[in-house]
């Protein structure tokens, strides 16, 4: 009896020590669905094979809630978590993320304005202007200043019922340089200035939309002539044969990011996995599955992405110089103030 017990214990102990030597097991939490599957195929699948890691996937529609629960309860099971950058900034603010190890992860690959200490951005979408090509056969507004020009572009506008992206756009429309947008917003009276500019456009706004699907419907039905929406939604209307066009000029770029929850079981391996997932090749590969533009600028070099796909990506070369990366940390700090000012403007 006793020798048997000893052998068993030895076997179990051996197995416990032996396993990691073969393949360290780490867990990634994604949003699942088509998006999650695309990330697996293009990014973490090949990255895990290269690093010899055994990666387990968990899916959570609300990644922030999931890691908050894990960190607060003290049983963190996720090593890498996929978040929207606003949630990433919030998580960092709440102390739920480890700082990124930029000796392992390539910080130089990120364009200016996209940098984050806690959540590494890897793909992007743009908040863009879209227009009805029947109303404007000559083409849409060349910039946000023209979008505001109701004499040159008469017609009904539809904007999202949310201050996010719109106050940045309002400043761009007044000629504020993309690089200065957040400096101006952070100044005394900066938010008020942007809100006042939105109030100028308000009489021409026929709908304040609340869901991306609604914004696409408004474009498709011709219920609005000029719509500020996400590039994916505008593209879907075009794919459906709707008479619509859009432009990435002056778009506000939102990103999704990868972070490591505070106290994750395999922090070092998680940093390595993030680095390997976000190589130019793998971020470019992701666009085969889903039209989210790589944030790693090198992904656009060497013809990794076919030309017709390039046109659909917010971060493609030529779009970046006029665009603004949405600053998630600014929104974490000033979001409530901006939203309240926005709601008051809408109600007046």
């Amino acid at each position, binding site marked *: 009896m006793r020798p048997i017990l000893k052998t068993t214990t030895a076997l179990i102990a051996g197995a416990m020590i032996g396993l990691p030597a073969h393949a360290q097991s780490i867990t990634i939490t994604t949003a699942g669905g088509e998006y999650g599957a695309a990330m697996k195929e293009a990014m973490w699948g090949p990255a895990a094979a290269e690093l010899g890691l055994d990666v387990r996937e968990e899916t959570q529609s609300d990644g922030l809630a999931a890691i908050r629960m894990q960190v607060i309860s003290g049983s963190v099971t996720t090593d890498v978590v996929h978040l929207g950058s606003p949630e990433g900034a919030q998580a960092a603010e709440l102390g739920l993320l480890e700082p990124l190890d930029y000796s392992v992860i390539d910080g130089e690959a990120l364009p200016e304005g996209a940098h984050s200490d806690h959540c590494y951005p890897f793909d992007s979408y743009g908040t863009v202007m879209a227009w009805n090509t029947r109303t404007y056969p000559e083409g849409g507004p060349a910039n946000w200043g023209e979008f505001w020009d109701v004499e040159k572009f008469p017609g009904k506008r539809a904007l999202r019922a949310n201050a996010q992206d719109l106050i940045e756009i309002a400043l761009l429309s007044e000629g504020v340089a993309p690089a200065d947008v957040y400096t101006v917003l952070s100044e005394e009276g900066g938010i008020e200035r942007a809100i006042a500019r939105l109030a100028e456009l308000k009489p021409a706004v026929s709908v304040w939309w609340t869901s991306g699907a609604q914004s696409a419907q408004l474009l498709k039905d011709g219920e609005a002539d000029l719509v500020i929406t996400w590039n994916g939604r505008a593209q879907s209307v075009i794919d459906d044969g709707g008479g619509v066009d859009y432009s990435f000029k002056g778009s506000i770029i939102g990103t999704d990011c990868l972070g490591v929850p505070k106290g994750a079981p395999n922090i070092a391996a998680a940093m390595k996995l993030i680095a390997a997932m976000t190589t130019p090749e793998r971020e470019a590969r992701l666009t085969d599955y889903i039209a989210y533009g790589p944030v790693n600028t090198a992904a656009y070099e060497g013809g990794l992405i076919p030309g017709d796909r390039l046109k659909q990506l917010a971060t493609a070369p030529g779009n970046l110089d006029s665009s603004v990366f949405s600053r998630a940390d600014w929104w974490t700090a000033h979001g*409530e103030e901006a939203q309240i000012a926005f*709601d008051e403007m809408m109600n007046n």
Partner: protein
Amino acid sequence: MNTPRSAQLMRDARYERIFFLSMSLPAMVLVGIGALIPAAWIIQQSFQTLGGDFTLENYAKLLSSSLTWRALFVTIELSAATLGICIVLGIPLAFALASTPPRIANRLMMLILLPLWTSILVRTYGWLVLLRSDGLVNKTLIGSGIVSEPLPLIYNFTGTLIGMVHYMLPLFVLPTYAAMRDIDANAVRAAASMGASLWHSFWTVILPLSMGGIVSGGTIVFIYTLGFFITPAILGGGKVAPIAIRMERTLSTFQNWGAASALGVLLLVLVAIVAATLFGAMRLLRRHRVGG
């Protein structure tokens, strides 16, 4: 000789009461779990900070914000307008139904009930298709030369009101119809025999006798509309923001459960005030009628 029998009767009556009370117990427990506990939780949340400490700040912020007062005003405006239109449209409809032979009335009733069995989302999006600028209604109006420009029928207060009335009308008509149907036809005949015109007997006989149904229908419509979300959210185009919409915004853009809960408590208080006023009015009405 009567005593034992009446004692027996009283005992039976008591057993009966206990029996029916016990039958209603599951429903009462459900109401307790399904309504009172969440309500208590919301009230508790409204007095808490994000960290869970006691605070009055949620209410201080709420009551000092112009957004709250505006939302309150819009909520009452929408409820009152919905109720007003339901009364104007619903009373003649209920009266017409009550005056037709039961067999036909039952069939017509099905037509009124049909929308109630249809998902509210489907119905609201249906209005979107009908009322938009190149929708059926505007196309017909323009085609027949009544208007030259499409009327703004959706994404505003008008559109919200149309959607609300469409949803609420059956809820108003049902109790009103039931009350009118129960009126003794002889009362109307008596009025007619005394020389009252149809209009006169409607005002002096039918309307007062069906007041119970009208008030309960009206109460349902008004209180239901106070907390309505879907219709203003879809047909209001972001321009109609009653309390329910503010609550959703508080949650989705600020992730602030405390403030959203405080709004919920405010709505609860509003409903309680309306209900108490209506019950008071009804009691007065009844006393007045008995006394007069």
